[in-house]
């Protein structure tokens, strides 16, 4: 009985309460989305006043002019990022969940990379992976291996960016998996222990199957995080070398604010929106099934 009947005065208060959120969402999310879709069909610079209709040409130019490559980079980056952060999250979640005394206090450090500013951490990674004097190269040399110029070669640069993104974000998946593990029915696990199941058997036959839904949900959230990685790449490699770390989002930024080709930027923006939308719908569907 939450509805209070006949209270028209309540309507005014309700509209007043929802107005800031609804109006600001409309102006700063929906209007830009409309502008994005509209302008992706037009030719013109970022603050241009005269727009010329060009149909789908921006999309064709975008895909041919580096955009297709950027989508490939985004796929490689996101797959590597999702697999590594989820594997690390699961393993550390299991370790933190083990009934070893005092172990839960070790949870706190994993949150730190998530909350410290990424420009600063990117500069640290740049230093660690610097050619010749960077710590990683000094370790390689100490082991008798040759130098790797991590940030000036396409393959190593992409790997470095994936590792850096993983370092910054995997704590989120540690927290998610730990919360999911703690929510599992403990009596089932206790019964299995009594029946002589070891940690591996408990994991493989009880915990992992029961975590299936959480794993799907976490993979969706992590994929969205991966798609939106920007600062790490902007500072560490600026999309280089030779566009090897230029993701779709970086492409939008570069075309829109550096090359001032907003048509291509908007076409890529539409693709990012559609990709995220499909993933978000998948998330809503999964959550709906859980609660329904």
């Amino acid at each position, binding site marked *: *009985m*939450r509805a*209070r009947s006949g209270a028209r005065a*309540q309507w005014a*208060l*309700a509209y007043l*309460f929802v107005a*800031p*959120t*609804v109006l*600001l*969402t*409309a102006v*700063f*999310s*929906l209007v*830009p*989305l409309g*502008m*994005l879709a509209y*302008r992706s069909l037009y030719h013109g610079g*970022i603050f241009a006043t005269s727009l010329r209709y060009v149909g789908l040409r921006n999309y064709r130019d975008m895909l041919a002019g580096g955009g297709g490559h950027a989508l490939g980079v985004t796929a490689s980056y996101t797959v590597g990022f999702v697999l590594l952060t989820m594997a690390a999250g699961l*393993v550390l979640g299991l*370790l933190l969940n*083990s009934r070893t005394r005092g*172990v839960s206090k*070790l949870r*706190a*450090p994993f*949150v*730190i990379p998530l*909350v*410290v*500013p990424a*420009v*600063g951490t990117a*500069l*640290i990674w740049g*230093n*660690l992976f610097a050619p010749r*004097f960077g*710590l990683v*190269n*000094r370790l390689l040399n100490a082991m008798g291996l040759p130098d790797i110029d991590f940030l000036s070669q396409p393959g190593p640069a992409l790997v470095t960016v994936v590792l850096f993104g993983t*370092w910054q974000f995997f704590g*989120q998946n540690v*927290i998610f998996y730990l*919360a999911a593990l703690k929510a599992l029915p403990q009596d089932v696990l206790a019964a299995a222990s009594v029946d002589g199941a070891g940690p591996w058997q408990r994991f493989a036959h009880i915990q992992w199957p029961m975590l299936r839904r959480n794993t799907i*949900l976490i993979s969706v959230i992590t994929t969205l995080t991966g798609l939106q990685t*920007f*600062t790490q790449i902007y500072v560490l490699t600026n999309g280089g070398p030779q566009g090897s770390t230029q993701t779709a989002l970086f492409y*939008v930024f570069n075309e*829109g604010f550096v090359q001032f080709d*907003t048509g291509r930027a*908007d076409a890529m923006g539409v693709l*990012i*929106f559609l990709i995220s*939308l499909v993933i978000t719908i998948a*998330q809503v569907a999964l*959550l709906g099934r859980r609660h329904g």
Partner: protein
Amino acid sequence: MAKRITVYGMLSLAVLIVLFPLVWMLLTAVKSNGQIVNPAAPLWPVHPEWGNFADAWRQGPFARWFWNTAVFAVAATSGQLLSGLLAGYAFAMFDFPGKRLLFWLALSGLMVPFSAVIVPVAQLLGDLHWLNSYQGLIIPNIASGLGTFLFRQFFLGSPPQLGEAARIDGASELMIFIRVYAPLARPAVAALGIILFLQNWNNFLFPLIAVNTTRMEVVSQGLSVFQSQFTSQYNLIMAAASITIIPVLAVAVAAQRHIVEGITLGALD
């Protein structure tokens, strides 16, 4: 016993990987630049140069950058919490024409990632003459679909008897919200507030497209500019990075319990 050693060993290794880059930052910040670029030099600072922090601070307008970041993060976070609290309460407690449609509108922002619309948002800010202004930084960031959703869930789970009792005593709907229900949300406000605050404080992409003058830039932008001006002064760059990271680290350590709670909330589950 062996199990205990394995668990602690693996966790300690992971903690080391997490914390090492930050320790390395501090060590590098107090080295001489000569020691940094010499691959044969010891890893430990030989003659610690504690003055590097003060030097870095003097080389850039950090005080201004911190001020801008604080204004932006405090205002945007307060706005997100307040607007989310109000909207979430109305969607949970009131019935009004158009409620369904308005609820979907309020959440539609969650479907539009900011990364997709950076170009039109910049164009919009330009049309409003809001580039390089506090209102341009703050106002577009106030609507929070996540806040609205979470506070709605929260109030749906709160006891309706409290409001009914107050209503019988003649309290107005506004007073019931302010005196009865809003105070109940305090723990949720703390958990969501700390996460939103840190997100706003660390936000780089939005300020990057909304402001580009030294007077208006935030700390993260400032650090990026600093880096481009002192490309090979590695000790000063690490000192400047420390200046931006240490305050956040202090907040994170002090509020770690709320942060863990807030991150869990963010999973929308």
